């Protein structure tokens, strides 16, 4: 819905007594800046059958061209033609495909209807229909909340005042009518929590549901290793306090979609069950092996009551062959490559580079063809259903680079429009599995129309190389940080920092030199203190580098594992943990506590202090003052041959103490720290409460 202030105000001010609401406009101004001032640019639209010659853009000054169009309500498309070349509007977020050409996709609301927009968790703005009909103040209704106070002003602003919201998340449906009785609604989300949330604050715990906890707690190892182990949502829910004690404030659960029964062969020829959840056979139902919808509701309620966000893992890339979509729409245009199902990613001539956008993971996992608008609409709605139905707080999108960028932009746009508003941001984090240094690949999916963040694989590889393998210089971590920040600068992204996940070998087994080898032959759980020392250094980096921290379940206890499926072994019972594992878990909890306390660790800027072969030292500095709790210093020392001397310029004068329990401290008058080998420390100013 567009608002047309100028035209409306003119009517208002020069005589007609109409209330001063913004008014919906049925017109849309299209702007475009051609690379050449000589270009002939026109707009063509789906609602005019792509007829040319109707909308030649006018010169609007300073290199801009503009024209006005009047789109009908609904999903409509348009494109620019710049000297014969069709292109989508670079200023628009969503695209579709018209005859193989990417064009702009527009969701045009009905200008003859009023609308409500949430402007903050306690206010909304009313926009009247194009006839200017005013808001009926008596019509405002806030569902699910009887105690709220509603006030309106002459501007169409609606202010809500909630009486004592219970801690946690609250979602309201606000509705109103204009004086002609036409309705408008909006969804408003409000949290009652101690501190206004920023996704930079997140510590995300990644859980593979089947492998975490079952009805009677800890699980036995599955037999074979690729079978279901019996983990459930209820089991996870029962363990939330233990998870929260690590400082975790968000949970990413593996896909909950109904998956097929039985087993299917992997590319290695072995039989696998769908224990991991990445084989959807239905898009809007819960796999009974994990629980029922009520169990999801209970899980989310329990998480929200603990001020924990929940991130669903969604799979918009493919379905299992037993999915009804495959039955109803076999082959093209819904799915790619139906005629040659032998194009399995990475197998034979179906190489990853050429076929990344159309290959299938397995012969039984058809890949959606996002070029088809029905597919895009359907899959986007399916993804949105998970948020709508369960009040989820974030999405982890699987296999991002294997779909056109239009796919994740569609999903992002839909989530923003349906669920987000100022003060409420659904975190959409993408899995773009890349190797080291692939910063520009990650950049591709970020920005104002893109994802909120991505998993920082380049940093993960850098940490694994420098810490677990002890290779290269510690300064490469600093380089990775700077390179990433430079590549993503301006995108506003909150990147997710991790040391491992379900698709790579376990960090501790890399440290132990036991990660290579068949994933069906489990690695041994190490007792070498050095392995756990490295685990702590790496965990500390993921908690103290800018962005959201991600802990893959088990990494807090240095769980061993070779590649998939061993990297997804069951979470052991507490009683089965060795002393070093328990100490590592306690260390993780201290990290979580320190991070929760220190604004600098969550939101401060990264500044290199020392980056050399054996030592990385950096400061995290919040902008406000650079002193007190606005700063923290992280030192990760591998095998230093001499004490580390910090440059003290810019640091608060006086004592700094390690908050992680090493007992290390220094005074800025003598800023030298004798870091023991393979240690990490997080120094905060003496006066800071975060050190206690």
């Amino acid at each position: 819905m567009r608002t047309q202030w100028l035209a409306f105000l003119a009517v208002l001010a020069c005589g007609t007594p109409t209330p001063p609401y913004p008014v919906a406009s049925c017109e849309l101004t299209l702007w475009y800046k051609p690379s050449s001032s000589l270009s002939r640019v026109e707009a063509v639209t789906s609602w005019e059958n792509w007829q040319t010659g109707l909308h030649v853009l006018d010169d609007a000054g300073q290199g801009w061209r503009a024209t006005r169009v009047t789109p009908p309500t609904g999903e409509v498309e348009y494109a620019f033609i710049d000297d014969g070349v069709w292109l989508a509007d670079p200023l628009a977020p969503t695209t579709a495909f018209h005859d193989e050409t990417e064009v702009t996709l527009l969701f045009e609301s009905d200008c003859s209807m009023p609308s409500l927009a949430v402007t903050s968790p306690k206010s909304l703005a009313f926009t009247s229909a194009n006839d200017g009909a005013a808001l009926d103040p008596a019509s405002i209704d806030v569902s699910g909340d009887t105690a709220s106070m509603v006030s309106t002003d002459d501007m169409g602003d609606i202010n809500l005042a909630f009486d004592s919201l219970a801690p946690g998340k609250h979602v309201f449906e606000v509705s109103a009518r204009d004086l002609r009785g036409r309705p408008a609604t909006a969804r408003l989300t409000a949290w009652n929590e101690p501190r206004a949330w920023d996704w930079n604050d997140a510590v995300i715990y990644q859980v593979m549901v089947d492998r975490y906890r079952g009805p009677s707690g800890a699980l036995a190892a599955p037999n074979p290793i690729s079978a279901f182990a019996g983990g459930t949502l209820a089991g996870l829910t029962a363990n939330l306090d233990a998870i929260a004690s690590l400082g975790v404030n968000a949970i990413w659960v593996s896909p909950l979609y109904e998956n097929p029964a039985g087993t299917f062969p992997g590319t290695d020829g072995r039989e696998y069950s769908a224990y991991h959840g990445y084989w959807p056979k239905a898009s809007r139902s819960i796999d009974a092996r994990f629980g029922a919808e009520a169990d999801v509701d209970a899980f989310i309620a329990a998480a929200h009551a603990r001020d924990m966000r929940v991130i669903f893992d969604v799979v918009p890339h493919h379905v299992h062959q037993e999915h009804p979509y495959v039955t109803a729409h076999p082959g093209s245009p819904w799915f790619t490559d139906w005629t040659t199902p032998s194009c399995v990613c990475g197998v034979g001539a179906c190489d990853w580079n050429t076929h990344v956008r159309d290959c299938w993971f397995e012969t039984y996992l058809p890949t959606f063809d996002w070029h088809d608008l029905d597919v895009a609409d359907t899959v986007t709605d399916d993804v949105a259903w998970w948020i709508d139905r369960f009040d989820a707080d974030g999405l982890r999108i699987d296999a991002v680079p294997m779909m056109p960028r239009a796919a994740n932009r569609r999903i992002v746009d839909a989530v923003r429009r349906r669920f987000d508003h100022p003060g409420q941001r659904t975190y959409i984090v993408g899995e773009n599995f890349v190797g080291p240094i692939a910063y520009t690949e990650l950049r591709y999916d970020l920005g104002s129309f893109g994802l909120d963040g991505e998993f920082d694989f380049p940093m993960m590889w850098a940490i694994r190389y420098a810490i677990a393998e002890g290779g290269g210089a510690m300064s490469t971590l600093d380089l990775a940080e700077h390179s990433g920040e430079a590549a993503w600068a301006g995108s506003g992204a909150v990147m997710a920092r991790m040391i491992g996940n379900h698709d790579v070998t376990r960090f501790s087994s890399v440290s132990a030199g036991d990660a290579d080898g068949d994933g069906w032959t489990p690695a041994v759980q190490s007792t070498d203190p050095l392995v756990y020392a490295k685990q702590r250094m790496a965990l500390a980096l993921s908690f103290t580098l800018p962005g959201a921290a991600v802990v893959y379940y088990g990494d807090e206890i240095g769980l061993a594992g070779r590649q998939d499926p061993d990297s997804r072994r069951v979470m052991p019972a507490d009683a089965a943990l060795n002393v070093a594992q328990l100490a590592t878990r306690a260390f993780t909890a201290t990290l979580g506590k320190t991070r929760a306390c220190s604004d600098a660790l969550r939101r401060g800027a990264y500044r290199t202090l020392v980056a050399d072969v054996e030592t990385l030292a950096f400061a995290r500095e919040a902008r406000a003052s650079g002193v007190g709790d606005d700063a923290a210093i992280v030192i990760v020392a591998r095998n230093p041959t001499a004490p580390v001397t910090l440059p003290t310029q810019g640091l608060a004068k006086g004592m700094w103490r390690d908050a992680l329990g090493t007992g290390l401290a220094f005074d800025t008058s003598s800023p030298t720290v004798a870091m023991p080998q393979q240690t990490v420390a997080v120094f905060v100013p003496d006066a800071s409460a975060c050190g206690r």
Partner: protein
Amino acid sequence: MRALVGVDTKSLTRQNADAVRLPAITLFTSLVLLLACGDDKTKPGDYGYPPDANIFNPGDGGTGGAYDSSTIGFVCPPDLERCAHDFTLPFNNEASVELRGDYGGPSTWVSGAPMTRQGSVWQVTVDVPYGKSVQYKYFVNGTTWTIDASAPTTSDGGGNTNNLLAAVTCDPAVCDAPPDPPPGVFDWRSSVMYFVFVDRFFNGSTSNDCHVSGTSKSGSASGDYEGGDWAGVTQKIDAGYFEDLGVNTLWVTVPVKNADADAYPGTGGDGHVYSAYHGYWPYDPNATESCFGTSTELATLVTEAHKHGLKVLFDFAMVHVTIDSPTYVSNPSWFWPNSFNSGDCICGQNCDWNAEGYRCWFASYLPHWNYTVAAARDYSVASAVNLAKTTNADGFRLDAIKHVDSSWLLELRTDIQAQIVPLQTPNQRFYMVGETYDFYDTAFIKSFVDPATKLDGQFDFPARRNIVDTMLLKKQTMSDLANFYASNDFYYGSTAVMSAFLGNHDLPRVVHLAQEPPVFTDQAADGKNLAWSSQPALPTDQKTFDKLANAFAVLLTNQGAPLIYYGDEYGMPGAGDPDNRRFMQWSGYSIGQQYLHDRIKTLLGIRSKHAALYKGIRTTLSATSDAWLFVQETLQEQIYVGINRGDSDTQVTGLPNQALEELVTATSANGPSATVPARQTRIWIKQ
């Protein structure tokens, strides 16, 4: 309201929706009347203001970089990515053939690439834009245009047929320097600015001298007028002072009529009394300041500057006027009311510098313009345009731009483009550089930069912080500085021209940061504590001037139009405002001062001859704690720069393995290694 496709929500919101959504109904009503029935211009072409094209560009995904220290943080803007492409034309007895086309922007239609004959064909390899088609033609024997009939052709839309090269891609792409402006158009990247603080520069005519009784004066600090004037600046122009130093652009303090009889206490209650000597207390935006001379003398300043090849930027202060200004007295509704939150809305007191920065008064006597009122905006913009028109100025320095509504800047750019730019043939770029006083927030600074609709550039406070923290205070290493520059290049867009500086009139004199120990340990300190008593003296040790000259070397060998604050070329001393505005020293320089001046002059001479220093693509060859070696490259040349901030000589490695010429000391050298003496910079070209 959701984000609207194709509609600039930012400017729409700023211009209209937010303004009228302010809670005060009275304000709303008056504003509506102004908007609707007043003279509100929707322009140009009735489409309103264009959207912000500076959205994050996610790129094309690339193929990943490498752990390559030379490219940390550097991101080539997509519009600068190039691919090398071979052009060939069958030999047909031509004497010479030149490839011309739009492959390098408009200028390569005028001056192309000479082809060489390789047997039966003419051949040349040029960089063409990545992924974009190219139109080209051959210029034969220096007289005749021809096409290659065997290659694809297209019409240019103007009746000519050109050859057409379909879009070329490559991996990796080359990053080329942004194209040059068309012939005859000043390249602002080559600008070297000098900030002439008129009242404190040179007194050319005592007849216009002003004094305001009651103003404070103590030692070297003065709140009164000190006699400098436009005639004085003109005399120095005519005497060749600026050309001799090597600057080509003057930033001249605010020329409009100030409240020159008023004496007011300083902002923040500093206990001292000031006059309007600085020019930031506008009284009548449509008249000129009589304490500095006549309007004729002002125009003469520009005319003489142009004769001497100098561009002139006038400082324009549009945040406020003085409370006795007729503009305010006659039109109080054009200004934000002082009363707010049941008190006086003074910045930093009852109102916040940031949250209420758009409306708070800097002092109780400085009403803050409200440019959401169209009539106010039009009036102020018209006065700026009028100043440019009547003086023939080449640009503006825009004061405290974050404190004015964005609609003001958008309208100014629109009107300058419409009314000033067409006056010159060929059309020159009217350069507008803004001041957003922030040493850290590059994104915020960038938000005002867009040469098409907003600013051409801003003063690069983050660069100043990095140079000073590295070269003078040594808080960070040379490799940090290298990383900063890599991330800073093109951060503000490939067409922006930022201005890097070491000193300005709001900071204590930079020479005191070069001293050891520094007078101020924080490079952003305001130095007010020493402004009126215990004022710092001129340092006497050579090391201070070595260090300062070497900091200037960073500035003068890198991208960003450098700014020299008057007197800094002689290391003038001074604490915070107003001690940092002492009268210009015209004689009696110490050895250190003379060294500094001469070194800046030498470096500027090199910069003017070697354009790669300001428009090249920089690659770091090595960076350590104390030394940085980099090469600045254009298609025409490679300039190698080695900077050693350390207190002992150091060897840099990575130079070409051949005979070199060192330009600072005018000696010869041989690669691949060379010694850079302590606190020195060396610049090499291939012999």
